[in-house]
């Protein structure tokens, strides 16, 4: 697979093993600008490991992660985020002690001020820019800004985390099972939200179990099994692929 001009993320020949276990072998994957790329596969196929490699939580044994022509391999998580990659986790990682508003202001500050800024004497209230943007986003996802985030429902926590990631206007958004554990209703509203983002041209990589979600969002699907990509193509191609049928049904 040759990365062409409009490739945002190129996972080049990545290999990762834990002890004797090959979690990822020879993964080669390109994600094109503005598309939604779904990664599916049975449990333990290495999907989460792949995301962890992308955001710098794990360092691959071999291969490289190239984002926007820049190599990310070996960089620390905050550098990768500053480069324009944000991630929604499987269990929402939010600031449970802070209010919804503060939760969203934090990532905006990171986007605007960079990875470190010492401004202890400046009042947060003077940061009208960050404040307005946060309010706008919170309205978008349908939360109320003054609520303490710790007491939100699981679905709302996910929505909040999504808002936090969106607030940074990342070029690439990684989503790890964004609808896991959600009710049908919440799932549908999340799909709507994600479609809305797609219209803005943000590139996404989604790990998902729910085929309904996958087929309503994805432009392209890669199927992972035992650490290898066994199929890659448009939703239609993948749906009809014999290999995938076997991995999922025959096994």
């Amino acid at each position: 697979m040759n990365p062409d001009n409009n490739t945002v993320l190129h996972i080049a020949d990545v290999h990762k093993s834990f002890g004797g276990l090959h979690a990822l072998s020879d993964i080669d994957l390109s994600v094109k600008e503005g598309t939604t790329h779904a990664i599916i596969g049975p449990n333990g196929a290495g999907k989460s490991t792949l995301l962890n490699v992308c955001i710098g939580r794990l360092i691959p044994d071999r291969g490289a992660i190239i984002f926007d022509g820049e190599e990310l391999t070996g960089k620390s998580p905050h550098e990768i985020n500053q480069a324009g990659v944000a991630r929604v986790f499987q269990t929402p990682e939010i600031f449970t002690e802070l209010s919804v508003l503060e939760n969203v202001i934090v990532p905006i500050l990171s986007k605007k001020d960079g990875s470190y800024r010492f401004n202890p004497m400046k009042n947060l209230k003077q940061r009208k820019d960050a404040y307005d943007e946060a309010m706008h986003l919170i309205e978008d996802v349908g939360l109320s800004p003054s609520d303490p985030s710790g007491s939100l429902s699981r679905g709302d926590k996910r929505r909040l985390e999504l808002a936090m990631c969106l607030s940074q206007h990342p070029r690439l958004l990684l989503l790890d099972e964004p609808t896991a554990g959600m009710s049908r209703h919440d799932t549908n509203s999340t799909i709507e939200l994600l479609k809305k983002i797609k219209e803005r041209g943000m590139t996404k990589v989604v790990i998902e179990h729910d085929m309904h979600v996958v087929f309503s969002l994805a432009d392209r699907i890669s199927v992972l099994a035992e650490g290898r990509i066994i199929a890659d193509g448009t939703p239609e191609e993948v749906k009809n692929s014999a290999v995938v049928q076997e991995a999922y049904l025959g096994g």
Partner: protein
Amino acid sequence: MLSKKIANSELAIMLIFSAVVLTMPIWLAPIGAGYPDLLQKFAIFGLFAIGYNILFGMTGYLSFGHAAFLGVGSYAAVWSFKLLTMNVLPAVLFGVLFSGAFAFLIGYVSLRRSGIYFSILTLAFAQMSYNLAYSVLTPITNGETGLQLTNKDPRIIDSLLSSEPVIGLPSTVLFGIKMSGYSGFYFCAVVLILGFFIALRISRSPFGLVLKGIKSNQTRMKFTGFNTRPYMITAFVISGMYAGLAGSLMAVTDPLAGAERMQWTASGEVVLMTILGGVGTLIGPVLGAGLIKYFENIFSAFNDRALHELFAFLPDGVENLFVTIVSPFVGEGWHLTLGVLFMIIIVFLPGGIIQGIERINNRFFKKSSSAKSDSNES
């Protein structure tokens, strides 16, 4: 809405705080705390606790080594008195600078780890400093005797400015005003007000919000693009500088410095002050420091005779029983009271007095949740 706005305005908070602090000699007099020695302690330990709270309260990192910075501040200040001048400003400046530099070194290493490992690393460093101050560093610290002023001290700047020979030991001054008694207190009080103001600004700044984010979820902070390590080091150094400031003020009010100030039990005391008042609140640590120093003063002064007088209204048998029960907790036994208090607070009221006040408030005057979140800040 209006009252909320006033309660949240920086100016209002600072005015009220300053008024309360500066009038302490008046309103503390009826409860027997209106004398300079104790008032100075209130201000000094209040500063120490405010600074400690910037680390522990805002970032959640539990340091057991802050007494080391207090000690460094004291030593630096006394050396400034010995070598340069009896003026307190350079002494305070050196105290803050040296403790800041020292905090940077220790923080740089300790902050490689978090959680309980961080606590133990800071504890190890503080114990090392304490042990060294007693042994090898005796030329600097004067070992067990402690560092004191002598008649042979050069005091270069002072001797350049005036050729009059000083009779006896000189006292610390601020441009001619002797820093003992009430003037000493007012100097400490002004520094306390400044320190409180800076802490208030920090807690309301973007920087402060990042610290709170680190406390809440460090993983998220990293994946949100924050380089948390320099933030932590900055917070550690700031709180170390506060400790050094408090240490140098101790030397200002009483120009000597001893290694016992660096012992880890002293670090434990500032943790207690912060928790007693309310971790993560601004006024809580000051309150906690004041209460502990006040009760230390009262309780340690009691002896058996005073107890008998106190319970004299009871029948003899009951009186003796009460004295027997209470006497281990007073005088020498003040630390026992402190330990018990420590446990009670952590078991029943981990949010400290501020949380207690909130609970009472919520019970008697049912308030909306928005009012509750505001009171967290002040």
